[in-house]
C-alpha cells in the first residue's frame, strides 16, 4: 500500500502530460494500419504515449492489441502509418536495432542458459561492453528483481513467479527507452498477480522506463496504468485514466467491457445543459440524470448504471417517480466482500446489483430470494452514451 501512496504523491508532483495539448509524445503512433490478407488487425490507430508512463492497451482477444505491440517491437511491419520513438522513425529498423525491449507472454526464457546468462544475453549483444560491466549490471538487475540467489539456476528450476521476474530483468537490463509487456502477469495465479502488480509499478518508478502493457485483464490494467487505451476490432475506442474509463465510458462497448454494467435503452424526453430525463421502456421507468449530455434530439441513448451504484430497498422510497424501479430477487451470489443480487424488474429485465457486506447479518436481516425490492440510484450515477 505504501507503493500506491507514493505513487499518488508522484502524481501530484508530476503534471499529467496528456492534459497538455502541446506536449510531445515520447512514443507517437500515427495512423497505423495492419492487414493480414483481408483481415484488418489494426485499423488507423493514432496514439501518443508520454515518457515515464505505464500505458495499458486493454481489449479482448483478437482486438489487435498484441499486433500493435509487435509492430512497436519490430516483429511486424505496419501496412501503413508510422511509429516514432523519441523522435526517431522506426520504419525499417529491425527488432535487434530498436532501443525497445519486450517481455513475452510466455517469457521466452532461453532454456539452456542460467538465469544469469539469460539476463546477460542482451548486454552481450552490445558492442564495446566490458565483461566486468556486464557482470555488474546483471548483478544489479538481479538485485532489483530479488533473484540474486537464483542466478545459477536454469529456467525450469524456477517457479512461475520467479520466471516472470527473470523475463522482466532480462528485458530491463538493456535500459530500453521503451519496455513492451505482453500480458506480463497472465501466467501467474491471483494472489501472486496482485503482489507482482505493485512490484512492477515500484520497479518502473525506480528505473523510470516507459512501459506499454498489453492485457485483457481489466483489473491488471486498472492497477498498473497511468492511462488505458481500450481496443475493439482493431480500433482504439477510448483513451483515459482508469477512473475516466470506469466512471465516464464514452460508448456502449467501453461501458460494457470495463466492469459490469446495467444498460437501459431509451429516448430523451428532456434535454437541458445541466440535466436530462430519459424514458426507458426496457426499465419501465424514467431516468433522471443530473448532468448534461451531447446527443441529437430524439436519438436512441443508453443509460449505463454500475451494479455497485444501485441501492436495494425493502420498502419503496419517498419518491418512486424517477430513478426507482420495483423487482423480485432472483439470484444471490455471496462473494465474501460483496454480494451480487440479480433482480428481475417488472419489465422483465434482469438488473445486477452489488452490495458490500459491511455487517454480518443473520438470515432474517438479509434480503433473500423471491423478496420484492425497490432499486434506486443517485442522479449522478447513470452514464449516458449514444453508441
Amino acid at each position, binding site marked *: 500500500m505504501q507503493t500506491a501512496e507514493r505513487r499518488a504523491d508522484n502524481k501530484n508532483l508530476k503534471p499529467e502530460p496528456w492534459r497538455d495539448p502541446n506536449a510531445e509524445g515520447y512514443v507517437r503512433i500515427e495512423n497505423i494500419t495492419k492487414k493480414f490478407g483481408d483481415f484488418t488487425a489494426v485499423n488507423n490507430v493514432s496514439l501518443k504515449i508520454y515518457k515515464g508512463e505505464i500505458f495499458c492497451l486493454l481489449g479482448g482477444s483478437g482486438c489487435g492489441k498484441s499486433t500493435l505491440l509487435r509492430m512497436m517491437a519490430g516483429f511486424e511491419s505496419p501496412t501503413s502509418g508510422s511509429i516514432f520513438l523519441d523522435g526517431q522513425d522506426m520504419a525499417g529498423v529491425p527488432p535487434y536495432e530498436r532501443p525497445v525491449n519486450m517481455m513475452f507472454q510466455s517469457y521466452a526464457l532461453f532454456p539452456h542458459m542460467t538465469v544469469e546468462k539469460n539476463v546477460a*544475453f542482451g548486454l552481450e549483444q552490445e558492442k564495446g561492453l566490458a565483461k566486468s560491466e556486464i557482470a555488474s549490471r546483471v548483478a544489479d538487475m538481479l538485485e532489483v528483481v530479488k533473484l540474486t540467489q537464483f542466478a545459477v539456476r536454469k529456467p525450469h528450476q524456477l517457479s512461475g513467479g520467479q520466471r516472470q521476474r527473470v523475463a522482466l530483468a532480462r528485458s530491463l537490463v538493456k535500459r530500453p527507452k521503451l519496455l513492451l509487456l505482453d500480458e506480463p502477469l497472465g501466467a501467474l495465479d491471483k494472489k501472486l498477480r496482485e503482489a507482482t502488480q505493485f512490484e512492477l509499478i515500484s520497479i518502473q518508478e525506480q528505473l523510470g522506463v516507459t512501459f506499454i502493457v498489453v492485457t485483457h485483464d481489466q483489473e491488471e490494467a486498472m492497477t498498473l496504468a497511468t492511462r488505458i487505451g481500450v481496443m475493439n476490432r482493431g480500433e482504439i475506442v477510448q483513451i483515459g485514466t482508469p477512473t475516466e474509463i470506469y466512471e465516464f465510458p464514452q460508448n456502449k462497448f467501453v461501458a460494457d467491457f470495463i466492469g459490469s454494467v446495467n444498460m437501459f435503452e431509451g429516448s430523451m424526453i428532456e434535454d437541458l445543459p445541466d440535466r436530462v430525463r430519459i424514458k426507458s421502456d426496457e426499465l419501465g421507468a424514467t431516468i433522471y440524470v443530473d448532468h448534461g449530455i451531447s446527443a441529437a434530439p430524439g436519438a436512441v441513448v443508453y443509460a449505463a448504471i454500475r451494479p455497485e451504484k444501485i441501492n436495494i430497498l425493502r420498502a419503496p422510497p419517498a419518491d418512486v417517480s424517477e430513478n426507482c424501479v420495483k423487482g423480485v430477487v432472483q439470484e444471490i451470489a455471496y462473494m465474501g466482500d460483496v454480494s451480487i443480487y440479480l433482480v428481475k424488474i417488472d419489465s422483465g429485465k434482469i438488473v445486477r446489483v452489488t452490495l458490500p457486506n459491511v455487517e454480518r447479518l443473520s438470515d432474517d436481516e438479509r434480503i433473500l430470494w423471491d423478496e420484492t425490492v425497490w432499486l434506486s440510484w443517485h442522479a449522478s450515477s447513470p452514464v449516458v452514451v449514444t453508441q
Partner: protein
Amino acid sequence: MKPAGAMANSRVAEGRLGPLWTLLFRYGPPRWTEYVLKNWSGQRLVIAVPYLWLLIFFLIPFLIVLKISFAEFSPLGRPPYEPVFQWLEQGALQIKLLIGSYVYLFNEPLYVSSWLYSIQVAAFSTLLCLLLGYPMAYAIARSPPTIRNVFLMLVILPFWTSFLLRVYAWIGLLKNDGVINNVLMALGIINEPLTMMNTSFAVYIGIVYSYLPFMILPLYSNLEKHDLTLLEAASDLGASPVRAFTRITLPLSFPGIVAGSLLVFIPAVGEYVIPSLLGRTDQLMIAKLLSDEFFLNRDWPKASAVAIVMLLLLVVPIMLFQHFQNKELQAAKR
C-alpha cells in the same frame, strides 16, 4: 505339515530374493506362464517381451561368438571348437581362453589400418551428412505445415526402393563410361573420364546418399519442436539472425545433432555393401575384412574376435546416444 522353522526359513529366503524365488521354487516351470500372467502388470509384460527376444537372439549368440573368439583355429574351418570350460578328471574346472586372435588383430597392420580407415570414412561421412542434413532439416521444420509433410515424404521416399538397387545405381553413374563422365565429356568440360569408381570418394557418396535421411529425421524432429518466440526474444535483445542461430537454435538442437550423427556413424563404421560395391580394393573396411575372414579364410576365431572388438568400439557411441536421448526426453517432459 512342514515344521514352523522351515516355513520361516523359506519366508526369509523369499523376502531376500523376492519374485524370482517365488517364480523358480514356489511355481515349477509348468506353472511359470500362470505365475507371470497372474502377478505381472501389463507394463512389465510389455517390457519383458523385447528383453526376452534380445536375450535369445542377441545375448546368447553374442556369448557363443565370444566363446569362439577365444578358441583355437581349427583347420576344418567349422565348429565344434574346444570348449572354454571343461571339467578335468581330477574334478577341477579348466578355463581355456586363447587370446591369440586378439593379439593378432592388434599386431596385424591390415586390421589396424582397416579399423582406422573405417572410422575415418564413418566420421567424415557423418560430418558431410550433418553439413547437408542440417540446412535441409531446418528448412523443412520452418516450412509451412501444409508442405512440410510433402518434404518429409520426399526424404523418406528412397527407402521404398531396395537399398542394394540404389547402391548399384551409383555404379552406373560413377563408372568410367557412366552417366556423369559421359555428360561431362559431351559438354566438353573434361577430356578424359574421371576415376570415381573404387575410390573413397565413391564410398562417401554412397554412404552420405544412403544415410542422409537418418541425419535429417532426428534433426527435423528436434528443430520442429523449437519455440520460435525464443528467436524473437533473442532478436529483441539485440541479436542479429546469425547470432540468434548460433546462440539459441544451434545449442538447442545439439541433442538432435548427436542423435543424427550416431545414427549415421554407427552403421557407417560397419558398412559392408557400399564399400564392397563402390569402394577401394586396396583398402578394406572392417566389415569386409570380417566377412572375408569368415567365408574365405574360414577362420572363425579371428572373425569372432573382429566382431567382438567392433561391437565394443560401437558400444561407446551407442551409450552416448542413449544418454542424449534420455536428456532430450527429459527436456521434452518439461
